[in-house]
C-alpha cells in the first residue's frame, strides 16, 4: 500500500473522530469502564490468590500419635514423613512438650491443670507443608498414606478450611470470567452502535465516495481505525485509573493500619499484563467495528 494512500485513510479517520467527538467519547468511556471493572477484578483476584498462597506457606499438618507408639515406630513414621516430597519440615512434639505449650497458652489459668493426674495430651509430629503443594488432592493423598502408618492416632490438617479455600478460588474465577464476558458483550454492543451512528451520519458522504470510485476497503478502513483508536485510548485511560485506585488503596491501608507497615505488599500488574490490557481494549474496539460493519453490510 502506498504511503499517501495510508495518509488519506488516517486523515479521514481523524476527521471522522473530530466530527463525532461525543460519540467517540461515549465509546471510549464504555470500553474504559468495563476495562476498569475487569482490572479491579483481576487486581483483587491476583492479590487474594497471592495472600492465600502466603497463608498456605505456613500451613501445617498435625499427626497425633498413639501413646503406645514404640520408639522404632516413631522413627520410621518420622522418616516416612520426611521423605514425602510435599513435606518441608517435621517437628516432634512430645507429650511433655505439648503440656508445657498448653500450660503456657493458658497463662494465668494454668492453675486449672494442677488437678490432672496424668497428661491427657497426645504427642504429635508437626509437618510443615511445602508451598508447591498446589492442589487439594495431593494433600489428601499424603494424609491418607500417613493415616495408614502404625502408631498414628489422628490427623489434623484443616480439611474443611482447605476445601473452602480451593472452591472459593474456583468460584471467584468462574464468577469473574462470567461477569467479564457479559461486560465485554455489552461493551462490544455499545461500541458497535456508536460506530453505526457515526457511519449513518456519514451515509451520504459514503454513497458519494462509492459513486466516484472509492473501494469498500477505502471506505471501511477509517471506521476500523476509529475502533482501534477508541480501544487504545480507553485502555490507557483504564490502566491509569486502575493504577490510581491501587495507589490510593495502598496509602489508605498504610494510614489506617499503621501496624501493617511493611506488611502491605499489594501486587500490581506486570508489564506483560498491562500489554494484555491494551490489547484487550483494542480488541474490544475492533470487535465493535466488525459487528457494526457486518450489520451495515447486511442492511
Amino acid at each position, binding site marked *: 500500500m502506498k504511503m499517501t494512500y495510508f495518509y488519506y485513510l488516517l486523515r479521514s479517520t481523524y476527521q471522522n473522530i473530530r466530527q463525532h467527538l461525543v460519540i467517540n467519547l461515549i465509546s471510549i468511556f464504555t470500553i474504559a469502564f468495563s476495562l476498569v471493572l475487569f482490572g479491579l477484578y483481576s487486581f483483587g483476584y491476583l492479590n487474594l490468590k497471592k495472600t492465600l498462597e502466603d497463608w498456605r506457606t505456613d500451613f501445617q499438618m498435625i499427626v497425633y500419635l498413639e501413646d503406645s507408639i514404640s520408639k522404632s515406630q516413631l522413627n520410621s513414621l518420622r522418616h516416612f514423613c520426611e521423605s514425602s516430597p510435599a513435606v518441608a519440615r517435621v517437628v516432634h512434639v512430645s507429650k511433655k512438650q505439648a503440656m508445657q505449650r498448653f500450660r503456657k497458652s493458658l497463662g494465668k489459668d494454668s492453675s486449672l491443670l494442677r488437678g490432672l493426674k496424668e497428661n491427657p495430651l497426645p504427642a504429635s509430629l508437626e509437618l510443615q507443608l511445602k508451598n508447591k503443594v498446589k492442589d487439594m488432592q495431593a494433600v489428601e493423598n499424603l494424609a491418607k498414606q500417613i493415616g495408614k502408618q502404625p502408631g498414628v492416632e489422628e490427623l489434623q490438617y484443616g480439611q474443611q478450611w482447605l476445601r473452602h479455600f480451593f472452591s472459593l478460588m474456583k468460584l471467584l474465577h468462574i464468577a469473574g470470567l462470567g461477569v467479564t464476558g457479559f461486560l465485554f458483550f455489552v461493551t462490544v454492543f455499545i461500541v458497535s452502535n456508536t460506530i453505526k451512528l457515526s457511519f449513518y451520519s456519514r451515509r451520504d458522504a459514503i454513497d458519494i*465516495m462509492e*459513486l466516484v*470510485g472509492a473501494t469498500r476497503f477505502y471506505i471501511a478502513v477509517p471506521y476500523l481505525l476509529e475502533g482501534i483508536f477508541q480501544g487504545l485510548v480507553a485502555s490507557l485511560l483504564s490502566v491509569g485509573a486502575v493504577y490510581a485506585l491501587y495507589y490510593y488503596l495502598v496509602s489508605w491501608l498504610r494510614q489506617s493500619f499503621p501496624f501493617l507497615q511493611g506488611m502491605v505488599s499489594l501486587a500490581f500488574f506486570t508489564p506483560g499484563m498491562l500489554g494484555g490490557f491494551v490489547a484487550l481494549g483494542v480488541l474490544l474496539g475492533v470487535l465493535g467495528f466488525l459487528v457494526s460493519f457486518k450489520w451495515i453490510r447486511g442492511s
Partner: protein
Amino acid sequence: MSSKKWPRMIRVFHLYKSYLPTVAVLQDVSFTLEAGDFVFLTGPSGAGKTTLLRLLFAAERPKSGQILINGKNITSFSRRQIAHVRRSIGVVFQDFKLINYRTVFDNVALVLEITGTPRNEIKKRVWKVLKMVGIEQKLYRYPLELSGGEQQRVAIARALVNDPQIILADEPTGNLDFEITTEIMNIFNNVNAQGTTVMVATHNQLLLQKFKRKVFTLHNGMLQEGVPAQENQ
C-alpha cells in the same frame, strides 16, 4: 492517454430497465459512442435519462442487456471492479452530490485521494481544474456557502480532475441562467476537444439548438438518434 486506442468508448446492447415489474423505464436501448463523441441525451422529464446515465456508471443494474465501457462488460462486474471503472468516468450529478463537511478543495481532491495520488500532485491538479471552471477563489469554502451555479462548477471540477475518458452530465445546466450555461457548455466542449467522450442529459431544447451536436432522444423508454420532428420546433 491516447483516445485513438479505444475507438469504441461506450457500447450498449438491448438494454432493459424497470424499477417496478409492470413499468418499463428503458426498452431495448442500444447505441455506440466513440472516443471523442459528444452527445445530448434528451427527452421529457421522466423519460429515463437519469436512469440510463446511472446504468452507464453501474449505479443501477439492468434487467437485461449489456453495457461495454472501454471494451469491458460492466454488467457482470464485481463491486471492486465497478469502483475501478468509475475512476475513468467523470459524473456530474443532477443534485451535485457534494460532501457538505468537506471544503471545495477536499471535495475535488477526494477523487484523487482514493487512488493514492501524492499530495503535491493533488494540490496542483485540483488548483488547475478549479481555475478551469472558474472557482479557484472559493477553494476553502464549504459547498453550502456557495450558490447553485458555483456548486455545479465544483461538481464539474470533481468530474474532470481525474482526466476521465468519459464525462456523463445529468442536467448540468438545469437551474442556471443562460450565461453560466454557455460557460459550462464551453468547458464540456473544451474537454471533448481533447478526446473525452461526453454525454449530457438535458430536457432544455434551447441547449440543443445553440450547440449543434449529436442527439439521442428517449421516448416511451426507447432511444432514437436525432430529435423527433414534434420536439424540434
